[in-house]
């Protein structure tokens, strides 16, 4: 019996679905790494061993894949991962000041996680929100048209209200500004962890 047999039941089911979703089981490594980060909080050694067993490759092979991608976090991540874009369009419109403000408000330096586990802060490369620069993501949900002050207010709101599900529309309405385009109707789905909120294998949950 593999360690993955101890995963939460829903996740075991989803793992099975992922393994059957591709012509070759190996393709399931990335989605399984997302699932495993939900199970263990981040991509731990155990997570990689589990994925290796599920797929039928060596843990070293999984590790080599995991280490290539920035979204597979191999160290602990906070409840809220704040990723601040400082690529060119955001840079031109004040992204560097936004990341300073986020560090200030969270007390967490870029690349780090705070001691109480609430926030991680990172510098992100372009998140496809350049028309609403400067932009940030919280657990990979986008907020556009920020200023340093609004970014601070966003952080304070996250810290005070500790939302279980992070909703892009809610954050945008409260703290955002110019958007890259009209987003259309409000959505009620979002992530419950620093893993993308994508139904089949991510952290998606219905919010308020």
């Amino acid at each position, binding site marked *: 019996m593999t360690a993955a047999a101890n995963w939460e039941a829903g996740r075991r089911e989803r793992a099975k679905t992922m393994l059957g979703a591709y*012509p070759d089981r190996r393709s399931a490594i990335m989605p399984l790494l997302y699932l495993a980060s939900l199970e263990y909080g981040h991509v731990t050694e155990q997570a990689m061993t589990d994925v290796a067993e599920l797929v039928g490759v060596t843990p070293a092979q999984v590790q080599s894949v995991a280490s290539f991608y920035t979204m597979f976090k191999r160290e602990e991540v906070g409840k809220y991962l704040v990723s601040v874009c400082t690529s060119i369009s955001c840079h031109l419109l004040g992204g560097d000041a936004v990341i300073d403000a986020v560090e200030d408000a969270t007390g967490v330096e870029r690349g780090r996680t705070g001691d109480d586990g609430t926030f991680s802060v990172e510098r992100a490369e372009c998140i*496809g929100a*350049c*028309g609403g620069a400067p932009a940030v993501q919280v657990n990979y949900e*986008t907020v556009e048209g920020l200023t340093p002050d609004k970014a601070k207010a966003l952080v304070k709101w996250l810290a005070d209200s500790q939302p279980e599900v992070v909703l*892009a529309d809610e954050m945008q309405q409260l703290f955002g500004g110019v958007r*890259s*385009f009209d987003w259309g109707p409000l959505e009620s789905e979002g992530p419950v962890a620093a893993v*993308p*909120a994508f139904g089949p294998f991510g952290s998606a949950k219905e919010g308020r």
Partner: protein
Amino acid sequence: MTDRILTVRMEAHPSDSHTIDRYVKTGGYKALRKALKKMKPEAVAAEVNASNIRGRGGAGFPMGVKWGFLGAAEPRYLVVNCDESEPGTFNDRQLVERDPHQLLEGIAISSYALGISRAFIYVRGEYARGARRLQRAIDEAKEAGYLGEDILSSGFSLDVTIHLGGGAYICGEETALLNSLEGRRGEPRLKPPFPAIAGLYAKPTIVNNVESISNVPWITLNGGLAYADIGPDRSAGTKMLSISGHINKPGNHEIVMGMTWRELIYDIGGGIRDGNELKAWIPGGASSPWFVPDKHLDTRVELDEVGANGSMIGAGAVVVMDETTNVVAAAHSIVRFFAHESCGQCTPCREGTSWMEDILARIMDGRGRPEDIDLLMDVSDNISPGLSWPPAMTTICPLGPSATAPVASIVRYFRDEIEAMMPNKEAANA
């Protein structure tokens, strides 16, 4: 004459353009029905070929020609590239969030034309919202019989799977993307073989961009010639340009190519913020050499003309910089991006990008050395010998050469500004 194709529905129906109901009510899936009921697969491919549409993902390769290279081995795959990570680009994001069925219909028609029954959409991990909308659309389309088994009782079946990336720009390069989709590190492969012959799991694979495929329903419905009729000869059709930076109207603007940059920036883009002067712009995303008003404002937004002028439209990201821009800091932001995203396989790219990042950082901090400008050019030349256009390559993929674009651009156009940032010699000697 048609001047917009892709953004019509989302603009007319902002509240529900992403739903199947709205899609079908506004003529959606008619093209698929036409293809499956009235056209042979080869006839559909012939329309795409006649449209003269060139790939919208950056390289501008004619789509019909690429389709013609698809190998005969079975199974074959269609892979749609939604890794969109080039700084400045956000048009695919809008297409998948606001009109996912347009893409899915394009995927179904393209797969039918190519004899493919398995398609993948590689969505960058940070586009979770887009992936959710797409997945919902896939479920709706299956339910309604536009995807899945025996589509519209035609005998044609198609399975579409979303694969979420892991945060790596290089996975936008098609062979890196295929490696990633196979559960490997996203490292580009040596070409040849090209994916059309040996792609996903070494099987014949067509990789096309989201915007490219989203045009297929319109082409199928209206005919390739009607599409070819839009815009200049070698830049047929519409193009969604993502405009950002110091511009009054940032956003995605779907245009017919052929206008001048002046018209694009001042009319479509509403001019420079705060009434400032335009200093430079990046015509096609972080990878492209910059343009400056003196030389390029009255040249045309057209694939070949931009190429002849030493740059590219690429994925369509126009980044506008006004007179307040510190060009060294701007170039540094771009070079840092490439240094961060280099996959590390090729020494000139891996080492050269980090080295250029360091040099630019010290110039910005007022610690530049007299030889630094020459050094920047040497390192650039080592990554992309001769700094010609299109770039010569010593590397496996074009990422390395791309990193030289901002550096060569600021040295060419703003050398005096870089020199002015160097610490003055007397002070240094004192």
